[in-house]
């Protein structure tokens, strides 16, 4: 990657305490997000995608602990005091949620939402400047100025999501984390919003971490993709490369199980993502992996870097010197019962 990263994540861990044990939702993740880059984060539900996104922004619920580094502007956000972190959220780091209606205050006009956000972070703006900035950002999202003084309920779902994006972008953040931003929207509106998000770089210079379970969305809107499984990054690299030629069996199986217009045969991955309180030994995907080898069940895979900065966490790519004799033999195991998968 050529650009300097906006955010560098190193060895990030986010654990939740539950009565049944510690959930290792994010377990030693390292990741760079370049300036103006759109990075997709995909995986099944329960793999820690959302937790990673929130962990990067320091927005963790009570009862969670994090450790490692999230470097933004030379500072580590992990362990930063909440007041300082809050000052960064908005003008530097933004977040867009799945359900836009719940994030807009129903008794506040759109204008007031923008006024509040701008006044809080840029107190020196005049009324006129606030209006100009807000209308400009809304216009780029396709919201006409005539609707500036309306209330959230007067807008459709897609428009509300556009307003939410505009509300995040009006502060010109360096990084935006979007957690399933289009999941509750219709196909055409979804495609419209994705178009807007993938143009962020050109229009705002904002980097985007796009969290989704839909691989089609990543393939279309993202420059790079990180595939997450059981709290770890299984594979990361250029979106075209990763989807064109997946290096990790999990990526490959996910792609095969995605139903698209080209699908002529249904395919699915047996089993379900593991419980993150007590994940499987060795490679966490090995119980479901059709390519699993003997070594996968006993030793943690070591991250390998392939061509063009592609990283993959899978024994199939070595390193050979760490694989014991016979380690490449096909893994023998019990069939996964249908009952355990769905």
């Amino acid at each position: 990657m050529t650009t300097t990263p906006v955010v560098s994540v190193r060895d990030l861990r986010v654990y939740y305490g539950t009565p049944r044990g510690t959930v290792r939702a994010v377990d030693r993740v390292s990741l760079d997000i370049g300036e103006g880059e759109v990075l997709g984060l995909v995986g099944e539900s329960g793999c820690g995608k959302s937790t990673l996104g929130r962990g990067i922004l320091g927005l963790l619920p009570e009862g969670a602990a994090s450790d490692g580094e999230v470097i933004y502007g030379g500072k580590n956000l992990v362990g930063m005091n909440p007041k300082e972190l809050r000052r960064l959220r908005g003008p530097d780091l933004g977040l867009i949620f799945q359900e836009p209606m719940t994030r807009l205050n129903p008794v506040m006009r759109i204008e007031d939402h923008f006024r509040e956000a701008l006044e809080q972070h840029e107190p020196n703006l005049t009324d006129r400047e606030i209006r100009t900035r807000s209308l400009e950002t809304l216009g780029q999202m396709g919201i006409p100025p005539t609707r500036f003084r309306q209330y959230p309920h007067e807008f459709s779902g897609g428009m509300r999501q556009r307003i939410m994006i505009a509300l995040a972008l009006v502060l010109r953040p360096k990084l935006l984390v979007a957690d399933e931003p289009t999941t509750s929207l219709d196909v055409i509106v979804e495609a419209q919003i994705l178009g807007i998000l993938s143009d962020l770089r050109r229009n705002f210079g904002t980097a985007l971490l796009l969290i989704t379970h839909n691989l089609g969305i990543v393939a279309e809107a993202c420059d790079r993709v990180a595939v997450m499984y059981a709290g770890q990054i299984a594979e990361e690299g250029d979106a075209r490369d990763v989807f064109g030629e997946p290096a990790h069996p999990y990526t490959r199986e996910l792609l095969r199980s995605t139903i698209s217009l080209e699908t002529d045969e249904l395919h699915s991955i047996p089993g379900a993502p593991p419980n993150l309180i007590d994940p499987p030994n060795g490679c966490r995907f090995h119980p479901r992996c059709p390519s699993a080898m003997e070594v996968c069940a006993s030793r943690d895979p070591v991250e390998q870097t392939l061509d063009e900065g592609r990283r993959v966490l899978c024994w199939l790519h070595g390193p050979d010197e760490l694989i014991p004799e016979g380690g490449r033999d096909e893994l023998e195991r019990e069939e996964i019962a249908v009952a355990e998968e769905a």
Partner: protein
Amino acid sequence: MARSMLWIGAGITLAFVLIALLAPVIAPYDFDTFRANGHRFPQLAAPSWDHLMGTNVQSTDVLSRIIWGAQTELKVVIVSMVFSIGVGVPLGLLSGYFGGWLDRVLVLLMDALLVFPFLLLAIVIAFLLSDRVGQGIFTAAIAITVVYVPLYFRVVRNHTISIREEPFVEAARALGARPFTVIRKYVFFNVVQNVPPLATLNAADAILTLAALGFLGYGIQPTDGAEWGYDINRAVSDAASGIWWTGLFPGLAIVLLVTGLTLLGEGLNETINPVLRKRPKVKVDMSQPTSGTEPESR
């Protein structure tokens, strides 16, 4: 916090229940006994070894009246709770599920009862019933029931309306279930969990209402049973002459039982209602290794 409230409340409540149940065994005298072994008890005697909480103006033993009073309270509260739940919950279910004119009429009726000053309402009911059934436990219980039916009705009805919109209720309809089956098997169980905390809180309130009725003279007849509110009424004139024990002990009993029930109710509420409930904090151990084996190079 919720847990300690729950346990303290449950402890106090249980103590009163035990006292009430064991009244015949532990009470030194009957609630209206004023003589024993051929001797009349002294009037307004200060607490002593003979009478641990003293005696009142009618020469009865205060401690015995407190203990028998607990039994009266318990009877009235139980009867009134059974009646108000028995009436309020089914009406709320029907009104919420079917809606329409039935709902409108019932809501209007219940709201009318709700805005009526509750004590006045209870007095009116007690007054009306006293002619027919006398001023016993049953009358007091009915008077209190009327006050609390609208509360159960409201809570159950509102909850039913939201449950009615749940997809699983529509799914049940799509299965071909009759409305009453849907209410019984699908709505009831999801609504009824709100009732225990409400019932406990209402029980605390009911004790105060009963005491107020007794204090005003519309409660249980002194010949029918001991009642703390009545005792406090009789003790009002004593207080002026420095006789504190006749009023203090029944008052303390009321305060203690009401506090116990309130704590129990709030505790139940917070334990059952997930919105109020905070996730228990569990310490997160970050030191454990990532997996069974440590990566060898990093």
